[in-house]
């Protein structure tokens, strides 16, 4: 059978993730110090795991309501108020999803009509573009630059807006750059959007991972922005719960109604066991967040300082758990640098180009690892860079 004629042309036209390709190279190599993963270096705190286990022991193995347990939505609402000063009605404005990824997918489908343009600041997480295409939207990439601290500027946003613009993705704190948007940065963006019908998908999955005493600000908390924003968040990063697949959307009722409809038909409801664990996380997990974020901050300082000492220029990341150093100074493409680093020095990092063409000249290094591990990697990277200089 000629599957290429049978399978959806739209699906086939999507490029596989560039990170994937690099990970495949890693397979089978031993003695590699990897700084590649995009997930926490912790297991889910025990009290949260226990709540999941207890729900199983009590036989809570049924479907929940489509939008998730009301207790869960209520706790999400409390959390958003407590941490980010956002107000959402648990009954009508919150949907519990299978991770932040499903929330992104459902939001795009709920908003996009064929031909609608979606502005995506890049470099960014790899899922926005393909999900946009599958919803028949047209992705419009806006390149954020190192000289702007990888922030989205109002000038760039303005230049990208057309009458067809439907949605702006706001992926901050950013994977892979570690950039954050402060209140003032966001206010300038909000000013561009207020007189338009452009909606915002604010992907705040790394909201708890901000450093240097700067607290994350949600664009939905700015005057006039709540009505046009879909806040996407989840439990994977903040509570080290990647495998539980727990996320949610918080959005005005008419938007939530559409998201819920799609979620209902596609997923039914988010996993029940995970919801019980997540309720415990929301109720009693704030200290876990602070503890883990403190550990990431050590790793961040350690890695940034180490890279700079080796002579790799490095933008100071203020969020997420990645460093995005400028490796262009070595006169190689990102892929070449990362491949040589892998084969010659046995350290794995991800080429910036995996996050969009504009990532050329950069690489993503994760610091969601133990200090010992990071130190070992830095030593190898240092030796590798020394051989380049010779």
């Amino acid at each position, binding site marked *: 059978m000629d599957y290429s004629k049978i399978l959806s042309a739209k699906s086939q036209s999507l490029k596989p993730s560039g990170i994937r390709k690099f990970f495949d190279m890693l397979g089978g190599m031993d003695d590699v110090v990897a700084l590649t993963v995009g997930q926490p270096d912790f297991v889910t705190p025990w009290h949260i795991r226990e709540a999941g286990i207890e729900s199983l022991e009590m036989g809570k193995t049924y479907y929940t309501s489509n939008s998730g347990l009301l207790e869960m939505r209520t706790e999400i609402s409390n959390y958003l108020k407590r941490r980010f000063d956002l107000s959402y009605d648990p009954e009508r404005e919150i949907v519990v999803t299978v991770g932040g990824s499903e929330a992104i997918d459902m939001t795009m489908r709920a908003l996009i009509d064929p031909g609608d343009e979606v502005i995506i600041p890049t470099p960014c997480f790899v899922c926005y573009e393909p999900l946009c295409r599958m919803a028949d939207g047209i992705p419009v990439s806006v390149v954020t630059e190192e000289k702007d601290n990888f922030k989205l500027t109002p000038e760039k946003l303005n230049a990208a807006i057309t009458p067809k613009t439907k949605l702006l993705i706001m992926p901050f704190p950013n994977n892979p750059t570690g950039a954050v948007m402060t209140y003032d940065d966001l206010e300038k963006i909000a000013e561009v959007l207020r007189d338009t019908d452009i909606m915002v998908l604010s992907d705040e999955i790394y909201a708890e991972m901000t450093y240097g005493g700067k607290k994350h600000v949600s664009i939905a908390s700015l005057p006039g922005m709540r009505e046009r924003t879909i806040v996407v968040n989840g439990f994977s990063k903040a509570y080290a719960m990647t495998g539980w697949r727990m996320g949610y959307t918080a959005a005005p009722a008419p938007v939530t109604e559409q998201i819920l409809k799609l979620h209902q038909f596609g997923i039914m409801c988010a996993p029940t066991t995970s919801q019980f664990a997540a309720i415990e996380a929301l109720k009693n997990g704030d200290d876990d967040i602070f503890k883990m974020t403190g550990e990431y901050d050590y790793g961040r*300082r350690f890695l940034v300082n180490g890279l700079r000492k080796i002579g790799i220029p490095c933008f100071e990341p203020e969020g997420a758990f990645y460093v995005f150093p400028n490796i262009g100074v070595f006169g190689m493409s990102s892929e070449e640098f990362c491949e040589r680093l892998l084969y010659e020095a046995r350290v794995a990092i991800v080429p910036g180009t995996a996050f969009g063409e504009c990532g050329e000249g950069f690489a993503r290094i994760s610091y969601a690892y133990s200090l010992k591990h990071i130190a070992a990697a830095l030593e190898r990277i240092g030796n590798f860079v020394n051989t380049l200089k010779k």
Partner: protein
Amino acid sequence: MKQILQLLEENARLTTEQMAVMCNLDEEELKNKIKQLEDDGVILGYKALIDWDKTDREYVSAVIELKVAPQRDRGFDRIAEKIYNYPEVQSVHLMSGGYDLMLIIEGKTMREVAYFVAYKLAPIEDVVSTATHFVLKKYKDKGVIYKMPEKDERECVL
């Protein structure tokens, strides 16, 4: 100060350079602070956590509950002092509840520990009674779990 102590308590082998970066301090400043903490007796020493069960060293340890009669003016201090001077005694805690002092004793064999209790501890004046509990297996001590570090099982996705 608290941050420095927490870091050292977690891993005393961090270099001052590494710690300075992590705490956002000048290295000299950090060294001075650590020296001060040592001089003040806040930091009493630096030791390694060793899982002796992975070696061929023969040893047993036991928790001993001690009931003692407190002394006029000195309370429990004098008897605690008398006891902690034995090198076999690893730790001494004054406890609330059903007994007074909790000791952890180490010896080469059960017999050696039993002899120590019978011939050294029990005869001490003011010791009213002893109860000895031998340790069968150590799972976690000082916040460290005693087993092989687990392999990083995190899969690379996306």
